[in-house]
């Protein structure tokens, strides 16, 4: 098992290197480099050239890349030329917001999707199953901004149960923080549960056809044990995968939901950086988010091994 973890960790190194190269190259490909952005459109070519030389922007791209990488390895992701904030400061300020949103959204999504999937698989082909599969399909095609507006209208405008927009840190006022989080998390969850439900449902229907389920029935086990232990556990691998991907995706924040609900998360940081052409922030945040995504996938791999002993023992 230790060997398995070590090997998977080793796989992370080339992936992270590739991610850093891509991030850097893409940021460099954007037209108009940092010197223009800082000096504005009134700058003379001489001034630009001088600043480019000072910032090392006239060096070949591979030299700039290794310089950047070297700084990152020392823990320096750079500093915004506009706000003077370092990338790490900016990210660590925003991450708790996006992280909390992601956790709540995923928990709500799982809380809706998993029980529905189990119920549908147990009664595959029934009217309930068809109704739920149909609703899931319908929900998949509702865009986030629409469900966000509908939820705001219903819970904030009509019923006045919850605030429409805003944010208070959890450490300041936990109750108010949760009240602000409910609607954005629910909005995201409404887009998450159909995928969760459809994947788990079809995996469970397949598992329920297996010989070992017939044997579990022949052993006279309770239907609940057959469903939750014998069928759910072997069916949960794909569920773990898509939950991992969803979480990885949400680590990067969700631009639309954070914008609609005025949450100061990673998504809005990125959009802001794009608008203001703050390339240092953009580069650093994209790299950190991508690294978070890669590490999330590593955790998913580890969960696979926990769930399926065959992977743990190197048989699959």
């Amino acid at each position, binding site marked *: 098992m230790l060997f398995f973890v070590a090997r998977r960790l080793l796989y992370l190194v080339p992936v992270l290197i590739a991610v850093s190269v891509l991030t850097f190259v893409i940021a460099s490909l954007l037209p108009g480099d940092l010197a223009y952005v800082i000096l504005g459109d009134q700058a003379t070519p001489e001034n630009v050239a001088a600043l480019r030389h000072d910032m090392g922007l006239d060096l070949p791209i591979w030299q700039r890349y290794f310089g950047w990488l070297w700084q990152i390895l020392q823990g320096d992701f750079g500093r915004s030329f506009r706000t003077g904030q370092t990338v790490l400061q900016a990210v660590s300020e925003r991450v708790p917001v996006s992280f909390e949103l992601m956790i709540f959204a995923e928990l709500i999504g799982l809380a809706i999707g998993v029980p529905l999937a189990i119920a549908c698989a147990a009664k595959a082909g029934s009217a309930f199953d068809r109704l739920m599969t149909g609703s899931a399909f319908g929900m998949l095609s509702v865009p986030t901004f629409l469900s966000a507006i509908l939820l705001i209208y219903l819970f904030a405008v009509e019923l006045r149960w919850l605030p429409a927009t805003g944010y208070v840190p959890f450490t300041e006022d936990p109750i108010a923080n949760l009240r602000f989080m409910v609607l954005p998390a629910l909005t995201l969850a409404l887009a998450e549960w159909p995928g969760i439900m459809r994947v788990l449902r079809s995996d469970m229907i397949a598992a329920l056809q297996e010989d070992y389920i017939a044997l579990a029935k022949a052993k006279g*086990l309770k239907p609940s044990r057959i469903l939750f232990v014998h069928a759910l556990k072997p069916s949960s691998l794909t569920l773990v995968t898509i939950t991992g991907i969803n979480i990885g995706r949400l680590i990067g924040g969700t631009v639309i939901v954070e914008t609609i609900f005025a949450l100061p998360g990673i998504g809005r940081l990125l959009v802001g950086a794009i608008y203001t052409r703050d390339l240092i922030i953009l580069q650093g945040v994209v790299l950190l988010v991508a690294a978070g995504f890669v590490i999330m996938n590593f955790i998913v791999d580890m969960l696979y091994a926990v769930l*399926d*002993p*065959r992977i743990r023992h190197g048989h699959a």
Partner: protein
Amino acid sequence: MSGAALLSVENAVVDLPTPRGNLRAVDHVDLAVGAGKTLGIVGESGCGKTMLSRAILQLLPKKAKLSGRVMFDGQDLPALPAEKLRRLRGRSLAVVFQDPMTSLNPVLTIGTQLTETMQEHLELDLGKARQRAIELLAAVGIPAPEQRLSQYPHQLSGGMRQRVAIAVALSCEPKLLIADEPTTALDVTIQAQILDLLAREQQRRHMAMIIITHDLGVVAGRTDEVAVMYAGRVVERAPTPSLFKQMRMPYTEALLAALPKLDAAPHTPLPAISGRPPDPTRPLKGCSFSPRCRYSAGRCGTEKPHLSAAEAPDHLYACFHPITAGADA
């Protein structure tokens, strides 16, 4: 049927709806197994023997329709409420499936799969159930049984897995064990060991057993009675010794002849049964075996022979032209 039988199947019919029409998998089958007795059900692939076993266990596919009675221990299984059936299964009616590679759950330990049945039916606590699980694994010939409890099926060989499956089946001292082709998926060298294990445990525990197989050789020394199935019907049924002394149904004879012989000269072609079983969605009017039967003549093609006794009261066969003692084989 004798009233003392532990299991009696009466007039069982299993119909499966298919896109090509109704498929009659089991066609008016009568069987009985007394307590502590063994019955062999023999037939080639697709003859309905597995469907029959699933019908006894009430594990037929959802779409299948079963009619007739399956009396087990005084209760009609198809009419039993789900909860009562559940308490019977695994407790007094146990099964070993064909393929141990797929019949054990890949993500649960051997220990869990063994103890859960005992915890369910015998109300043992986990400690006692584990103790018994170790004894059972030792009884079915698994070395180092204690370590096995924390292992997963993929860490065991096919033969070992089938031993585990047998231990699971035996765990609550069932009255009847159904072994559905228990050795078909295993290496030849392991087959005899598993069959001997089943026979030994059957005798030691005085349980009744049904062995389902396509191999007449498997049932020869190990059963009290044999039923030969063809195209969903029982075509010959007799006490094992009298069947092997004088088989009457040409299909049984052909099945026996199709077994490879060790003493045959090298490169002797196997006397395979030519042709194939009839399409079960298009039943024949006459004897189902008649198109492949070398004795077929006269009414064989137009009339179905009934399973009935002739010379001996317990030797039943369904044939108009039975093989007689003098006939050459």
